[in-house]
């Protein structure tokens, strides 16, 4: 188990490194398209004007590309703190209550089991049980749990959930997911703003006489270009969905490997599932980071094409079934009786 586990871990780390780079490149390229596409359309539109009016310096593209690169860099650097800020989490620096002390102990134990430095610990003041991890690598990682999780789970279950999150940290899922959360947030914000601007601005320009200057190709390009501005938010959302489902199974398996107690995670997931209320502190932009879908969507309980396309998390029942399978296999191996 250890050997194939290690192989999967390194593969997963490599995939996450590569995907983060691809994501950032794609993000900058998208900005370049938005900018230079605009320049291109404008230069075509102005092509039959006299030379001094022609659009020769494509500064719009340069500015937007630089902006995109800066946003990507900024998002990568500060993504974790933005995510934590968005959920209203507070850091546990000096544990005061017994529950907090236990949380700190459990996180330290699991960091030892996973062989990673102890992450910083945060509590989200929310009564719904949930947890997430964020950061760029094991040296700069954060684990956050909701107050509801501390109140609901016993020590072993809390340990299993923390181990699941440290699985995400160790295989670098956090890097990809945090970068994505930061970029999705930026794009959604921008897309909303630009959508409003275009809707407002469209009326003005249609009022002015345009004349014969623009050919059909320019119009098609313009429509495509405008669409990509508006679709940016949706594309970003879909990306966030696509990356998060498969890796939950792997993190569950890593939790079982760290705690050697898959049954604890199974029962923790059952408890989390039973508390059906949405985790209101966690917004859709960070949903893919959590151990269970914080939006409490019914989609998550099904399999099939629609759920595969739109749910951020795999079906809970399937995750629990897999973990119980591991638990029974372990009992059989150790020669114990199945309870």
């Amino acid at each position, binding site marked *: 188990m250890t*050997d194939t586990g290690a192989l999967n871990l390194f593969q997963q780390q490599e995939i996450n490194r590569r995907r983060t780079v691809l994501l950032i490149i794609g993000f900058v390229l998208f900005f370049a398209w938005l900018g230079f596409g605009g320049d291109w359309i404008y230069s075509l539109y102005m092509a039959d004007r006299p030379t001094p009016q022609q659009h020769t310096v494509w500064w719009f593209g340069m500015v937007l590309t630089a902006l995109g690169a800066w946003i990507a860099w900024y998002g990568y650097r500060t993504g974790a703190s933005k995510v934590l800020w968005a959920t209203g989490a507070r850091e546990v620096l000096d544990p005061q209550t017994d529950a907090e*002390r*236990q949380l700190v*102990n459990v996180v330290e134990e699991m960091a*030892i*089991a996973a062989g990673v430095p102890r992450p910083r610990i945060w509590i989200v003041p929310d009564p719904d049980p949930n947890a997430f991890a964020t950061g760029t690598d094991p040296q700069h990682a954060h684990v956050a749990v909701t107050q509801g999780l501390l109140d609901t789970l016993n020590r072993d279950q809390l340990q299993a959930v923390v181990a699941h999150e440290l699985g995400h940290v160790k295989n670098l899922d956090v890097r990809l997911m945090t970068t994505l959360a930061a970029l999705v947030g930026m794009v959604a914000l921008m897309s909303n703003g630009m959508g409003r601007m275009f809707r407002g601005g469209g009326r003005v320009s249609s009022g002015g006489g345009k004349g014969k200057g623009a050919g059909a190709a320019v119009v098609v390009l313009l429509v495509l270009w405008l669409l990509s501005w508006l679709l940016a938010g949706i594309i970003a959302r879909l990306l966030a969905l696509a990356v998060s489902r498969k890796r939950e199974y792997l993190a569950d398996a890593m939790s079982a490997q760290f705690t050697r107690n898959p049954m604890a995670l199974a029962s923790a997931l059952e408890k989390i599932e039973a508390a059906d209320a949405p985790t209101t502190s966690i917004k859709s932009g960070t949903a893919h980071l959590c151990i269970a879908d914080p939006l409490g969507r019914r989609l998550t309980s099904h399999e099939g094409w629609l759920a595969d396309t739109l749910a951020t998390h795999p079906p809970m029942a399937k995750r629990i079934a897999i973990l119980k399978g591991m638990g029974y296999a372990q009992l059989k191996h150790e020669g114990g009786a199945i309870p």
Partner: protein
Amino acid sequence: MFWLPLILLVVVVLWVIAAYNGLVSLKNQTFNAFKQIDVQLKRRHDLIPNLVNAVKGAMDFEKGTLEAVIQARNQAVKVNAQGADGVKQISQAENQLSSALSRLLVTVERYPDLKATGNIGQLQEELTSTENRIAFSRQLYNDTATSYNTKQQQFPTNMVAGLAKAQPAELWEITDQAERAVPQVDLSMKPPAA
């Protein structure tokens, strides 16, 4: 076709380098994981005097249990990690300490008014955590050492093992069957079926 052997040679050399570096990195990881156990054992040794002090006044009548813990602790502190069977010696001493501690915890459990005083509950959490840390650091050491051992014995990496001065790492044996159940200390501390 004179370049064909050349390419083969380059491939082989690159593979030897990769395999050698892989073994060295695993060796250091194993060493590091072993040191981690030491760190956690030291933590436990430091915690025990506090625990004993906390229960001493209330437990005049359980002198034997306390003395067993103190003795096992002092024995464990004394054991030196050097020598061929260093791991075996440490694990023996630490296992004795573990069982002495679990006897103490069972005893504490028998006196409800002792448990009711606040800092005993805290100390129990600390001790549970310490026992878990030790168990998990051993687990990490054994996992790392196993993949190191497997790597150096498997073909074709075993051909580079001599070059990388790879020696099979000794696993941390758990002799006490009861200790195999990791949350054993939890069981003694919580009311059943909690």
